[in-house]
């Protein structure tokens, strides 16, 4: 039976998600210490194949693999044979012939890993596909929320920004919805397709930022992804005044609200420096949790056991 990778949150059950989140806690470092070293994946090889530039995600996966004892090789598209005209299937088949145990992949085309997984026995871990999903981001976000509170059920989470083009938003919506959270998606209407309200239970939409933030337990800000905008869907000059998160907004939220951002942040575009550096910000905790969550994901994929305990 071919081993499964991790393509998206949409297809996971809540139990499978919970197993990863629980296991990630085992890998979290103690205060002022580094991540522990394990030999769980000793002798295994993980290939990180990034067709889009990435610093944090690629590094995070690389460290996660190494902390588990696996060998990690990172390839970027610029250095790969893609630039020589090789098709994606051929590139992946070539890499698969070198018998890695998993391929971690980021690609600008939505569904690229899903398409490839149909032809490939090597499990693929999706590190972001186009405007579709970024499953490990949603997992590390959930881990970060849980670290601050007890549960995801019933939480009010505002996700604000360029929802239309955000794979982070989609994965988070799928995850939070499975836990029964209340999800408010907010942005200018041209970046907020009305169909979003139907992709998962518990989702509402608003174009009014105050309304989104009122009584929120969690505020997730999204980067304005100018590189994914194929046309000008909003006037960038006034974005910050209507959809940029500032300190005064936080008064509308619950007193213990946390502010999240998948990074890289654009200070003064979607979030003010004051908020980014405030006590409410858990942006660096997210980055830190990225490693423990990815360790849990790699372990579940590579150790041949799916999250949730299924063999």
């Amino acid at each position, binding site marked *: 039976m071919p081993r499964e990778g991790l393509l998206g949150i*949409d297809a996971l059950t809540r139990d499978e998600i919970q197993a990863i989140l629980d296991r990630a806690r085992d890998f979290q470092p103690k205060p002022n210490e580094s991540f522990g070293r394990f030999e769980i994946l000793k002798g295994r090889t993980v290939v990180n194949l990034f067709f889009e530039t990435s610093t944090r995600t690629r590094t995070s996966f690389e460290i996660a693999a190494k902390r588990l004892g696996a060998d990690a090789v990172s390839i970027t598209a610029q250095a790969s044979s893609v630039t020589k005209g090789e*098709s*994606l*299937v051929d590139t992946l088949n070539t890499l698969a012939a070198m018998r890695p145990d998993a391929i971690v992949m980021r*690609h600008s*085309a*939505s*569904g*690229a890993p*899903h*398409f490839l997984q149909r032809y490939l026995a090597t499990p693929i871990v999706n590190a972001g*596909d*186009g*405007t*579709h*999903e970024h499953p490990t981001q949603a997992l590390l976000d959930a881990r970060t929320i849980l670290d601050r509170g007890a549960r995801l059920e019933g939480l009010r989470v505002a996700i604000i920004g360029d929802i*239309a083009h955000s*794979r982070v938003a*989609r994965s988070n919506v799928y995850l939070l919805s499975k836990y029964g959270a209340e999800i408010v998606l907010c942005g200018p209407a041209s970046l907020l*397709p009305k*169909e*979003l309200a*139907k*992709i998962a239970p518990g989702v509402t939409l608003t174009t009014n930022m105050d309304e989104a933030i009122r009584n929120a337990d969690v505020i997730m800000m999204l980067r304005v992804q100018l590189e994914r905008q*194929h*046309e000008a869907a909003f006037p960038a000059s006034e974005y910050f005044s209507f959809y940029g998160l500032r300190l005064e907004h936080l008064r509308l939220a619950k007193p213990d609200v946390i502010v999240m951002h998948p990074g890289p942040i654009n200070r003064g575009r979607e979030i003010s420096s004051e908020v980014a550096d405030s006590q409410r910000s858990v942006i660096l905790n997210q980055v830190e949790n990225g490693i423990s969550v990815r360790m849990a994901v790699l372990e579940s994929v590579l150790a041949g056991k799916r999250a949730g305990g299924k063999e």
Partner: protein
Amino acid sequence: MQANAPEAKSKSMPALLIKNGHVIDPASNRDGLADVLLQEGLVQQVGHNLPTEGVQVFDATGLYVAPGFIDMHVHLREPGFEHAETIETGSKAAAAGGFTSICPMPNTAPANDNATVTSYIVETARRHAVVNVFPIGAITKGRNGDELAAIGAMRQAGAVAISDDGNPVMNAQLMRRAMEYAKSFDIPVINHCEDLHLSAGGDMHEGVESVRLGLRGIPGCSEDVMVARDILLAEVTGARYHVAHISSRHSVEMVAFAKKRGLPITSEATPHHLDLADRDMKPYDSNFKMKPPLRGCGDVEAVLAGVKSGAIDAIATDHAPHPGSEKMQEFEKCPFGILGLETALGVVLERLYHSQKISLTRLVEMFTTNPARILGLSRGTLAKGSSADVTIFSTNKEWAYDVNKSFSKSRNSPYDGRKFRGGPVATIVSGNIVWRLS
């Protein structure tokens, strides 16, 4: 009008008698058991108990016998893309789908935008095709939407309609002139309706599914605004205007409205737009990627209703072969289009006949009389003296489609493995059996 019709392949063949079939010939108001005698490329007689002496007999007991089916919208890829399909292979796929006449769109390289290319297609078909091929010429040079093509000359060389299919004519003024000019030659104008600004970069229908999959959408309104524009232009110009592969609810409604006003407007629907919605798409499988895209469930319902009401006149496949190397890529990189010829009747029987939406006579009309009328072809009937093109089909024989056995050079079908009830049994062109179910 019929100068372009390929000649009967062989006039010395013995007569062929199709015996005991249920003949459906909407043009002659015939719907019942009868024998059909074909000789010298023509229908000689339709009647009861025709003598069997000295003729080849085809026993059609339990089968339906109809005028040869016409597919007014296919892509044969020749000249220019022979790695995907040729006139020969496409015609064989057509025969296996029960079609005796097909109309290739001008999306070739070079484009069929002048009489030389039209003649090349007609001549190649005469030599290699097993069914009749009636080319459709381009509206504009190179299908670029800038300047009118040599429409009159293409008409003389055998083109039966004009279209820039795949490339909508975005410039309304140019479309108006094309409609006016086409009137001089009594040739219908077919448009692939899609406002390219509204659909820019889209890969599938805009809706919940596209948002869920993170794919850029092709909204229904990108089709609707151009259908609306063209209906207004057709009214101004009085041209015969035909909407290709109609797929969205509002477009169907507008065509119905235009017809009610008495405008000479017609439309076609593909089998897949009657059958599949966006949510039926296998995620990121390019065998489900075409233009117009598989739309929402409400749109599919509207297209079915349009067939029932008569807003939609014809079934056309938009058979669009693409080689595996092009279809096996990231979804957003894959070209649009799927095979359609061999599965059309199976799909349409299921969606329209077995589901009791329309009668078999109406179904046959959409494959025969109506496309013939739209294109001005003196085909689509079994009246005495007409071309001996016949489609024999079953409504209950169960079969499954195996795309790897397709006559097409390509394999891009969403219907591989699909089970059907009823389909083509034999295809007869100019009195010759060109395909028969084995």
